[in-house]
């Protein structure tokens, strides 16, 4: 009896083995799919940095700030913070590109924050369900507009409008680009900020109402403070996106690599710089590696910003779990 049972169990085990193998295989396959994005990020990181460091084979790290160059006009050596990749003495200063990127990304983030947080408050707290159902898909639609179309509108229409209103010297400038970039980062900001506010438990709102608070008092006194970390994560993530946006800034900012703090000046961002030059550069040259270096710096910025906002969001989720 016992032996028979053992025999049948052995049999059973054998048939099981096949199943076990196929399950193991499927599991591993899905694991690969699951970690593929992590793997790809790691590979991009590696590739970017491997190429970027080769810049230092021929140039010093100080070249990234500026260079002493003999100036024919002033007839003496002058310190130049310039990006002039095609020139007798090529200059690869990152300073004008930083100026450009931040001069676009900061105003864009501010514009998008004001609009986006306002919209998120309206959507999560005030909008009647019907209006909400109509607005949400519209916002997703906004996210679906190709950035080249936004860039086109900025370049063709808004640039003229802004020049007429502000009488700017340059038609294409950082502010025009910032307006376009704000539109591009608005959907993600609204979505994350709204999620954060909707995650505030109903019990907290009830507590506020039960103490005699009005709707506005509840929003400002309870909902927004409870969701503040999520809202700031939305802003940080939006800033990261704004730094990384390429097509709109390439079209609308004028692409002059100037060291400036003037928001109505033409600027060139890190992204636009890569997009404009990488297509026509000879591989393996100093210029080529310099562009990779710009890419690596940009990637480090956006990666850090995304990482920070992810940490903040996680912390908030834990805190509100109650």
């Amino acid at each position: 009896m016992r032996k028979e049972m053992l025999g049948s169990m052995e049999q059973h085990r054998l048939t099981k083995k096949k199943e076990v193998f196929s399950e193991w295989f499927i599991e591993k396959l899905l694991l690969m799919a699951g970690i593929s994005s992590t793997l790809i990020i790691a590979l991009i990181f590696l590739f970017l940095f491997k190429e970027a460091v080769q810049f230092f084979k021929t140039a010093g790290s100080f070249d990234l700030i500026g260079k002493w160059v003999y100036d024919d006009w002033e007839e003496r050596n002058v310190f130049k913070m310039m990006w002039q990749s095609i020139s007798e003495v090529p200059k690869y200063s990152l300073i004008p590109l930083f100026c450009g990127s931040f001069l676009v990304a900061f105003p864009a983030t501010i514009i998008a924050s004001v609009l986006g947080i306002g919209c998120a408050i309206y959507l999560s707290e005030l909008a009647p369900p019907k209006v909400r159902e109509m607005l949400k898909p519209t916002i997703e639609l906004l996210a679906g507009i190709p950035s080249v179309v936004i860039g086109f509108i900025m370049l063709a229409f808004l640039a003229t409008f802004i020049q007429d209103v502000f009488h700017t010297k340059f038609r294409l400038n950082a502010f025009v680009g910032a307006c376009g970039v704000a539109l591009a980062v608005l959907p993600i900001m609204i979505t994350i900020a709204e999620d954060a506010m909707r995650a505030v438990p109903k019990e907290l709102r009830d507590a506020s109402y039960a103490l005699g608070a009005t709707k506005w008092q509840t929003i400002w006194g309870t909902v927004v403070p409870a969701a503040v970390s999520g809202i700031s994560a939305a802003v940080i993530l939006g800033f990261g996106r704004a730094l990384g946006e390429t097509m709109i800034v390439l079209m609308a900012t004028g692409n002059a690599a100037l060291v400036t703090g003037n928001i109505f000046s033409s600027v060139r961002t890190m992204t636009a710089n890569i997009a404009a030059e990488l297509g026509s550069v000879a591989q393996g040259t100093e210029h080529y590696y310099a562009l990779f270096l710009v890419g690596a710096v940009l990637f480090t910025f956006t990666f850090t910003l995304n990482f920070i906002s992810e940490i903040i969001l996680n912390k908030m989720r834990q805190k509100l779990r109650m």
Partner: protein
Amino acid sequence: MEIKILNSGKTLRVNQDQDLSSNTTKILVRDLEMFYGPVRALHGIDMEIKEKAVTALIGPSGCGKSTFLRTLNRMNDTIPGARIHGTVLIDDVNIYSPEVNVAVLRRMVGMVFQKQNPFPKSIFDNIAYGPRLHGVIDKAVLEHIVEESLKKAALWNEVKDRLQTGALELSGGQQQRLCIARVLAVNPEIILMDEPASALDPLSTAKIEELIYELRKNYTIVIVTHNMQQAARVSDFTAYFYMGSLVEFGLTKDVFTNPLKKETEDYITGRFG
């Protein structure tokens, strides 16, 4: 006082220190009906709630006792599709008449919820939230209110040295007493409690019950509870709800020892519910 309940063999300590049926009426409910969309949740409720007494609402889940409780401070207003017929008079004012200021009403009729819901702020800011809403900004006044409220809620000694720490760091029972203190800070006359101890351990429950017993001297309290013993221990009056109707209402000692209706008796003795 210990009372043997009917023929069930269980004994309960019933709160019967004094006869409160001569107290003045604080809340007078007449022919109250409540609808959630097409669903009728309350059927013609008539009830007189006495001042400075504890009234317990008991009944099986979904019987309408929480719904009824929330009609007393108009918390049902926040639910879309909720409608109400009939009158609720508090100090002879119909709280559903259009000229009533809901914010002032809710300040007068405080509420403690089933799940402790402190704000993710400091202990101090939790208590000061209500007074600040109503325009108190003077720091000394706020400090005084916070201290008084915490003392009344029997929490002062446990938290006086850490008023600036986060309220979420307190234990569940402490959080619930904090929520009671938060209600006391706006100086209400009536306190509604929706199963305030159902999520707490026995020790914390005992503390809450003691607190209710203390508060009853100065406040009118209406409490929803699933716990028969709790209703018997803390309340002066008991109302038994079933399927949205008020089946029986009277002094707790009468309802628990000599119910008029068979359904009440079945529920209390545990034959049903």
